Each structure stands twice: as C-alpha cells, then as structure tokens.
C-alpha cells in the first residue's frame, strides 16, 4: 500500500462515525424547536447529558425506562437549562431523544467507511442504546434502555485521559511489549509516544505564535497547563528513553552478531531485527523531540514574560475608534479622501533615490550575457519528459556537427591519401569551411583528438568493435565516428591513418569564421595526414 497511514482507516471511521451519525440524526430534526432547544449546541449538550445518565444507570445495573429519563431531564432542565417544560413534555423530549435520535426509530444504522486495503467502502454498524424488557413489581412490563459497547466507547472518548497520564501509559505498554519481545507492537507504541511528544512541541510552538501575535489572547490558564505538561514530559522521559535505546541497541547488536558469527537468521528473527531498528530510530527521534521541548519550554517562558511587559506599556495608550471617529465621517463626505493620505503617511516609506557615480564610467563594463544564459537555464514550466527529449535532441544535433566536420576533413584526406591541413584550407570553399568549423570548440576538440591519437589502426578498431558490444555514448567519440566514416569510404579498405604535426611549424589560418554573431579568425598549427590502404 502506498500510504501506510491509511491502514487502520475503518477503525478510525468507526469512532468518527459514532459522532457523525449522532449529529446527523439530531441536526435535521425540527422537533427540538417545540421544546425550545433552538441552537444545535444546546441540543447536542442535552443528548450527551442523557447518554451519560443512561451510562450511569447501566453501570449500576439499574433499570432505566422512559419515565426515569423524563424525570432526569425534568430535573436537569429546572436546575440548569430553565426551559419552560413540564414533566410530560420532558418525558416526550426524552422519548424523542431515545427513539428518534439514539435508536433511529429502531432501524439499523450504518456508517460507510472506506477500507483502503480492500479498496471499497464497508458499512460499519453503529448503535448507541439498546433495550430489554424488564418486569417491574407485579408483572408490570417496561422497556429499559442500556448503553451498548459503541455507546460506552463514544462516552469514554469524550473524556480523554489526561495528557501526562497518556505518556506514562504508552510508555508502560511500550515497556511491556519490549519485554515480551513483541517488537511489532512496540513499534506502534513508540510511534505513539513520539507523536505525543511531537504534539506537545507543536503546542509550545503554537502557543509562542499566539503570544507573539497577541499575548492577551493567550490566557494564563493555558499557560499554566502547558507549563505543567512540559515539566511533566521533561522530567518523565529522558533517562528512561535513553535506557530503552541502550537496551534496543544491545539487542540489535546481539542479533546482528548472531547473523554474522553463528548462522543465518531465520525470517522471524530478521523481521525482529527490522522492527528493533525501527524502534531505535524512533527512540532517537523521541529523545531529540524531548530536547526540543526542553528548549521550547524556556523560550516560551521568556517570550511570555517579555510580551506581557510590552503589553503593559501598550495598554497605557489611549486609542480612538477607527470606525466611528474616522471611517463613518469619511463616509459622510468623500472630499475627506483627498486628504486621507495624511493619515496613512506614517505607514509608507520611500526608498532614497539613487545617485550616479561618474567613476562608474571608467570601469570595465562587461556585457551581462553570461548571466542571461544562466537565467535561461532556469525552466519555470518543468515537464521532465519533454525536457529529456529536448536534451536528447540537442545532443544529437551536436554530434551531427562533429560528424559533418570530421567527414569533411577525412573525405579530402581519404581521396588524396596524403595531405596537410594547410593544403586543405586552401582548397575548400565557404560552404565546406562552415561544415569544417561549426564552432571553434568543436573544431578544436576534433583536432586535439586526432593529434593525440597519432596512429589510428582501423583494422584493429574494427576487430575490437566486432568482439565487444558497446553502448552508444553521450559524447563525441573519435574512433567510433572514424570507423563509420571509413566504412562509408568507397576505395580500398583503409588500414591505418597517421597524423602528425608538420616539421616546418607552419600556421594554418581560417579567417572570417562566424561564431555567436561575431567574425573570428582561427589559427592552428599545420597537421599532416597519411592514409595507408590495403594493397
């Protein structure tokens, strides 16, 4: 699966579905309005209050009939909500909450959750309250409601364990799994621990952001809880996690040594090793996170103090209201807008105008051409495929130039059998010259390669090519190109070519070569070619 985090998705959807169905059932009902519960917040508050009552009754294994629920709502209402409802209305309301919202009129409720492993959505069964028939005194039958498993889970999840406890609990579980060597579960636990620490760090950062923006919007109580949580995390963990890391490390080492010295590891052991390494990785990250929390803790304290000090200064400032004192007045008279800039001017800064230094005129001025070229390399719209194609095309074009240049030279040499560059230079026309020297770089590279080889044994090269398979190369390869050119030659097979500088140190000049819009003259030493053909 591409995304590992989607693995237990249906499980999560079950928890979410519990809330979603409940709210969905409640929010569309207009019956609420008859009882004066207009806001959905009020409605949901009441539903959960009722659910808690049912839970309480079920835990005590007491009977919980509609009458009981009605009485409960009546009490709660008169004491806290103060809606004008009599006992009978409360009972009706209870009936409505139980039967319409929680039990969906007895119809089964499903929440569709997508299972990414199975690649389809599966219906997840949801129920909050079930009922059974009970006998009150003297065979008087009534329906009693009790909470289902789902209902319990829903209510338990509304009151999370406290944050500091969470860490301890997860740590205990982690420890247990480690002891039992069920490393796969230990990995999950250490991930949880890491997440808890990470959340704590994020909390600190968010708090700092909030304080920076406006320290007053951050309440002292928030500050207190976060500080206490921080302290708890800090003292709790570090030593323990370091011990764990030591332990995990030693176990990894044990397994690794076994692998090297004793025997090949079994598959299960190899799996364990993998898990252990994962645990170690997470442990080190956890310790890092711990360190960051420690730092963040002190930063937070310093920041809060500082911002509060500043705020106490700021609160001394008397401010007028922008809307009533200015905006409303402006709305009455548009002419004021012509003078409004006066009010805004402190906001804007103008850059100081620049001064020209005449000395600049005497400095060496370079054309910014190089820079432009680099800039043009930065493709904004990047399409990798077309980019690669384009690159390939450019490469082929360049190779073509090499080939033309070389063939132009060699055709002449092959025809003559023996020739010098000076001779050739005298006999070529403009078009050939252009072919020979497409650019200075290319011409130079060809000549250097030729001179460096001195003797080229074509027969041997041919043999070599027959014996080995080679990938076509990206760059200019003299021998390969030479071979293909020699094969294209019509005369007797060429045995070898000898290339050398002429003795007399002549200089060959090619004038008026076009390059990048400029005319250039190329000078190079004269070269002597000798072609030996098979007799």
């Amino acid at each position, binding site marked *: 699966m591409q995304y590992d985090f989607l693995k237990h998705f249906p499980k999560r959807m079950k928890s979410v579905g519990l809330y979603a169905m409940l709210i969905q059932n409640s929010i569309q009902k207009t019956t609420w309005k008859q009882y004066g519960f207009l806001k959905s917040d009020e409605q949901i508050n009441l539903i959960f209050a009722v659910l808690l009552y049912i839970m309480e009754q079920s835990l005590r294994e007491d009977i919980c009939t509609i009458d009981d629920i009605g009485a409960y709502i009546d009490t709660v209402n008169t004491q806290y909500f103060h809606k004008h409802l009599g006992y009978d209305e409360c009972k009706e309301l209870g009936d409505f909450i139980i039967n319409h919202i929680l039990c969906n009129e007895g119809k089964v409720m499903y929440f569709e959750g997508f299972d990414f492993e199975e690649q389809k959505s599966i219906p997840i069964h949801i129920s909050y309250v079930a009922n059974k028939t009970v006998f009150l005194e003297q065979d008087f039958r009534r329906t009693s409601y009790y909470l289902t498993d789902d209902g319990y889970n829903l209510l338990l999840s509304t009151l999370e364990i406290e944050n500091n406890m969470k860490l301890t609990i997860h740590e205990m579980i982690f420890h247990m799994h480690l002891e039992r060597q069920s490393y796969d579960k230990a990995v999950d636990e250490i991930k949880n621990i890491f997440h808890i620490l990470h959340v704590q760090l994020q909390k600190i950062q968010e708090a700092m952001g909030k304080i920076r923006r406006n320290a007053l919007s951050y309440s002292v109580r928030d500050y207190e809880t976060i500080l206490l949580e921080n302290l708890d995390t800090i003292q709790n963990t570090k030593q323990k996690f370091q011990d764990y890391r030591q332990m995990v490390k030693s176990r990894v080492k044990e397994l690794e040594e076994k692998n090297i010295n004793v025997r090949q590891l079994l598959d299960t052991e190899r799996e364990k090793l993998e898990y252990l390494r994962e645990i170690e990785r997470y442990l080190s990250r956890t310790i890092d996170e711990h360190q960051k929390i420690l730092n963040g803790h002190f930063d937070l304290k310093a920041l809060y103090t500082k911002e509060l000090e500043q705020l106490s200064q700021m609160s001394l400032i008397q401010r007028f209201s922008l*809307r009533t004192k200015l905006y409303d007045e402006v709305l009455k008279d548009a002419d004021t807008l012509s003078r409004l800039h006066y009010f805004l001017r402190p906001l804007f800064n103008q850059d100081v105008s620049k001064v020209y230094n005449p000395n600049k005129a005497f400095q060496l001025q370079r054309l910014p051409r190089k820079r432009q070229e680099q800039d043009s390399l930065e493709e904004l719209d990047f399409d990798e495929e077309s980019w690669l194609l384009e690159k390939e095309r450019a490469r082929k074009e360049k190779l073509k130039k090499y080939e033309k240049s070389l063939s132009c030279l060699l055709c002449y040499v092959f025809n003559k059998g023996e020739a010098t560059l000076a001779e050739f230079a005298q006999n070529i026309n403009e078009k050939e010259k252009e072919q020979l020297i497409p650019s200075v770089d290319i011409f130079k590279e060809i000549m250097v390669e030729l001179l460096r080889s001195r003797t080229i044994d074509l027969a041997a090269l041919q043999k070599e090519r027959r014996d080995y398979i080679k990938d076509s190369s990206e760059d200019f390869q003299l021998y390969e190109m030479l071979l293909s050119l020699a094969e294209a030659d019509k005369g007797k097979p060429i045995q070898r070519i000898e290339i050398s500088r002429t003795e007399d140190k002549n200089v060959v000049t090619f004038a008026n070569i076009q390059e990048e819009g400029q005319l250039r003259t190329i000078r190079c030493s004269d070269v002597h070619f000798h072609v030996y053909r098979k007799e």
Partner: protein
Amino acid sequence: MAYEMDTIRASQEIFYYLLKHHELKEEEEQGLYRAYTEQEEVQNLVKSQGEIADSVIERYGNIIYLIPREENDILGFSKGQLKSMLCKSGATDKDYYLSQFVILTLLVEFYDGQGSSSKTREYMRTGELMNSISSYLKEGMEHKEEEEAQEGIAFADMLRAYEALKSDERGSRAKTTKEGFLHNILIFLEKQGLIEYVAQDEMIKTTKKLDNFMDWNLLNQNNYERVLKILRGTKDE
C-alpha cells in the same frame, strides 16, 4: 555634551540601516538593536538624526522603525507619488480617491477593536474586501443624497467607477477588472511590509508592522489631530 566616537558611529550605522531597510529587527541585527536599546546616548543620537531627516524613530515591540513625518516627501510619499504608485498610469482623481478608500476600508475591517489591541481578525479574502468596498460605497452614497450638489468628488462617482470595473472569476490582473485594481494596491502594501498577500489564495494577512503601527501610532489618541485635520479640511493645501 561630549560623545564617544564609537557611540556616534553606532548611531550613524543604525540610521543608515534604517534608511536602507526602514526597520531594524532584533533577530536580524542584534548588535545594532542592542546598541539602540541599551545605550541611551546612541538612542538619543539616532532620534536626533531622525529629527533632522524630518522623521520619527520609534521602537514598537522588538523592532525599531523609521517613520517619516507627514510632510516629509523625501522619505515618505507625497500625494502625487502615492497616486503614481497606487494607480496605473492615466488614472484620474477618482481612481486615486478610490484607492485611498480601499486602504481605509481594509484598515477598518482589520482594526475595529477596542480591546487591548485594535486588531479584530486574522485574515481576509480579497473577495470579501471587494464586497465590503462596494457596500460601503453605497452607504456613503446614501449619506450624500441629502446634501446633493456639493462640488468635488462624490461617492456616487466612485461607486460608478468601481462598478464599471469588471469582475473576473479567473482572477485576471487586467487594469479593467476589480481584481486588477485591488491587486496593484495590495502589492504596494505588501512591498511596504504592511500585509502578506498571497494572490493565489486571495489571502490578505496583516504583518506585525501594520499591527504595531495601528496600535501605537495611527490610532493613538495623541495623533487624533491628524484625523481632525482630514475631517476639517484645511484650506492651505
């Protein structure tokens, strides 16, 4: 009074930095910042230099700002310069007034609070800004109807000019669209370090600088004469 050369140099350095960047943040230039905050002499020298440059040097939070005075056309923007920055070439007075109205509306939407800070919201989308501009323009027009036939600009004209701009769903930045008109103003404000403007998401957020300026300076009761001056309309302009 005798000053140490080091003190003078430090103050000059700070002032030049302020000229270049308009503000000096503690986290970016700790040395200079501390010189300013911890040595009274340096602070006084910088302030006096600011006075000569027809500006005010103030520290709001942990940032030192160079604030040009209202009449300062060298470091601040004169009305004409502001117009050329906010409106595109060939703009009429109507466009300029409208741009001023846009900025003022933006400020009202953000800084309408009476708590310890005047800031009341975290962000605003350009669409909402556009809508509130037209509704306020209409409101202004209604005010005006009673005392018709006054000379000068009227909200009715501005509203007509504003509504004549096309509204473009695709967020075109052309001169003839509302989006384009606002875009130019918002970009200017962003360059001045007053807002963060993400054109892609049509997101406008204010910066710490603007928050500080509104709280400490613009809305400060001590600076209320500025507002009075605008409302009374001094004839000497």
